């Protein structure tokens, strides 16, 4: 699934979701999948402090459709994996991992996604409800 590089950081901007689904198409060269474990445009030396956004909030997520939330989930998952890879690599050489508060932000955003979806699933009349909730708690 092609994830646009705009969402490399967990930024919130109102218009982002529309542009996201639009640009998910074929502007990609053959990308090395290993690059997804490393942070995009970040230079080697400590030039300037890294700008990262805040986490997603529940009212913002309630506006999104199921597909959008699905895609956002995977964006956040890749971001979390990238941050955890970075942290593990830096700790293995006893260096400091800068800005460790990004990981809980991503994790809590993912939690809120599931919470919003569960709320929607509870509202459903009978047969849908169990199926939807099962699909979500299906993960692993």
């Amino acid at each position: 699934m092609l994830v646009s590089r705009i969402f490399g950081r967990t930024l919130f901007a109102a218009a982002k979701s529309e542009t996201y689904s639009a640009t998910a198409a074929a502007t990609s060269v053959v990308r090395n999948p290993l690059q997804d474990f490393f942070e995009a445009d970040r230079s080697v030396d400590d030039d300037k402090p890294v700008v990262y956004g805040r986490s997603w909030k529940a009212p913002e997520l309630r506006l999104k459709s199921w597909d959008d939330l699905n895609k956002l989930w995977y964006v956040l998952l890749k971001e979390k994996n990238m941050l955890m890879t970075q942290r593990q690599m830096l700790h293995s050489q006893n260096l400091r991992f800068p800005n460790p508060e990004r990981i809980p932000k991503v994790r809590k955003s993912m939690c809120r996604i599931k919470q919003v979806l569960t709320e929607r699933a509870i509202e459903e009349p009978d047969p849908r409800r169990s199926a939807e909730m099962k699909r979500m708690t299906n993960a692993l």
Partner: protein
Amino acid sequence: MGSRLGRRVVHFANLPIKLLMPSNFNNITEIAIKTIPSASKIEIKRVLESLYGFEVDKVSTLNMEGKKKKRGGLLVAKPDYKKAYITLRSPLSISPDLYPIRILEEEKQRMNKQTKSSVVEDGEGKHHWLVDDRPRVAEKKYERFGVRDRDRRRGGGGGGGGGGEVAKFPWSSMRSPHVTSARR
């Protein structure tokens, strides 16, 4: 009933995957990752293929315990993890300019330089006791003597080699113990 679930579609996969540092940067055919111990090989393969786009050939896994340390009476343990070695179908390469790699490389270089001991004996480099690759001075002359004079040649070669170079230390002409074992 609920097991009309031949439904093997997972909608919200949640597999934490930490990539370990690859050994070299060009022609990577195997990568190593760390995951949670309850991840199965098939799951890892599916997630990597669908989410990241790796072409996975083989996955082999092993479970590892986290490091435990006892501090006073308390046991401090890091979480257990699963290591997976993933063979790719075609080699990949990665540029070391991505974020943390360059710093890690430099750090490793510095650590390697520091652990090299500053006390270096004469004629010492990286020598293994089974491999006798000391510089032989004027070896051709001794070939005529045959096998019998082997230890003499060794002794002569050792003394000649040590005296030929500029002796760094006053004890350079002393033979190190592993040479004398040839006598037996």
